[in-house]
């Protein structure tokens, strides 16, 4: 067909590479997983995922990831604001450091945070004196997930804040609005979408995170076991079906988080689109 002719040559070639690679490294392994899991049977699946220890694992993963993403949402806004609007010595270094959790292997972060927050650690001591257990508690898990999620919100919000047109702010200022009102009414609504994107990514990442958490968690059943750890435990017991069952629910949880937030963003965009 003439209509399917492409102007820039190389369509088939790049399509070929892309599809071949995706199939080999992603689609086939995923299908293998689906195929294997579908042989498990509903009874087995339900008995695994409704096991109380597993349910508690989901609960810990979900809750800690949520709190960590929320903390990162708060600090992400502050960090973006400080990096975009203020000039101060060391700003560039601060900006460069934000990406550290992307660059630093999670296992390194894991052991460093564990030692830092252990009862004898630099920060653990302080918590200990206050009577709070930081490492080997849900608080420790949350701290590790905050570490992992730091770049997500900041790196999404920062460019939007930087490219914001000053006119709307100036107009509000001419009406005599206070700086806080300007932020709340004029700036923040613009930042909400990238904030949500960053939040969703940090949240989803937190649900699946393993390396940085496994050391600091302590891994006590019914207390500090996270869902990915439960998959590992099942694997070590050669219970592959159980591992698959835990994994399916975990994947569904992450997808739900991403879809919900994506859906809300679309709803917002649509609403605003009509208002404009």
């Amino acid at each position, binding site marked *: 067909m003439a209509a399917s002719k492409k102007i820039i040559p190389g369509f088939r070639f790049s399509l070929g590479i892309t599809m071949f690679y995706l199939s080999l490294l992603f689609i086939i392994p995923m299908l293998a997983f689906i195929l294997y899991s579908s042989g498990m049977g509903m009874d087995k699946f339900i008995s695994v995922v409704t096991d109380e220890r597993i349910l508690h694992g989901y609960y810990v993963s979900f809750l800690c990831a949520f709190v960590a993403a929320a903390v990162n949402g708060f600090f992400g806004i502050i960090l973006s604001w400080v990096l975009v609007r203020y000039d101060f010595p060391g700003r560039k270094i601060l900006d460069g450091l934000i990406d550290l959790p992307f660059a630093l292997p999670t296992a390194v972060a894991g052991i460093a945070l564990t030692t830092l927050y252990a009862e004898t650690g630099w920060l653990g001591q302080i918590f200990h004196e206050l009577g709070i257990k930081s490492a080997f508690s849900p608080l420790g898990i949350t701290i590790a997930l905050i570490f992992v999620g730091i770049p997500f919100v900041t790196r999404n919000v920062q460019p939007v804040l930087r490219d914001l047109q000053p006119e709307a702010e100036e107009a509000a200022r001419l009406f005599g609005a206070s700086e806080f009102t300007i932020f709340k009414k004029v700036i923040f609504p613009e930042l909400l979408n990238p904030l949500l994107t960053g939040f969703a990514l940090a949240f989803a990442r937190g649900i699946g995170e*393993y390396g940085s958490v496994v050391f600091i968690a302590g891994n006590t059943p019914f207390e500090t076991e996270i869902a990915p750890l439960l998959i*590992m435990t099942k694997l070590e017991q050669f219970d592959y079906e159980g591992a698959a069952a835990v994994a399916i629910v*975990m994947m569904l949880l992450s997808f739900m988080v991403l879809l919900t937030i994506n859906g809300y963003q679309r709803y917002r965009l649509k609403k605003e689109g009509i208002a404009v």
Partner: protein
Amino acid sequence: MKKDKLVRISLIFLAVSFIFIMLVLPLLLVAKEALAKGFAVYANSLTEGIAVKAMILTLEATVAAVLFNTIFGVASAWLLTKYDFKGKTFLASIIDLPFAISPVVAGLFFIMLFGRMSPLYPFLQAEHIKIVFAIPGIILATIFVTLPFITRELVPVMEAQGRDEEEAAASMGADGFTIFRKITLPNIKWALLYGVTLCTARAMGEFGAVSVVSGHIRGKTNTLPLHIEILYNEYNFTAAFAVASVLVIFAIIILIVRNYIEWRSKKKISAV
């Protein structure tokens, strides 16, 4: 105004303390713990046979992941930005999917594909091919986890640059390879390098997926992060942190390179 200044100082203070406590302190701690028993012990922990082997395997997996994902990243970004075709949005979301999958689950995929329960297993066994609990599995898992990185860096840049230059070259009779080499590549080289550093960082430090497929055979299928885990769990903290310090140095180098690249590409943009 005085109040503005107060807000400003408190916000900067808050931001700096957050980053200091969350990011800088752990780095300082790694340095302190690594050198806790003196430099000799530090150097020894790094030059010991198992550590060196782990370093080599990490290097192999990283090089493989970067190499293959670069080819894939460039091809897929070119495909997604230079052509319109049915199913394009679907393809783009498939490529993004590994981001939403826990590394542990990713490792599980490969266990299911090549492990004992797989229909491929009898064949692999007969041919004496070991994939999971062996080096190929580690490399595959690493590639999987870093699969979308380069595509994701390239697509927005190539989208913004449009197709005009490529179409102009095509209308003058240039073939696909010439267009890519002479027109596209020079325009995307900074974004590509940026993606490569991201991919390198993640590949080097991948833990969860590799942990699942490695089977923890010491000295044979351990990458640096897994080696750290074993040392740590054996209460050999100094050695664990010594090995960790190597990865910290790599991470800092990657950060510096990233920032340099960003600075370079911004300079180019502001020149235009």
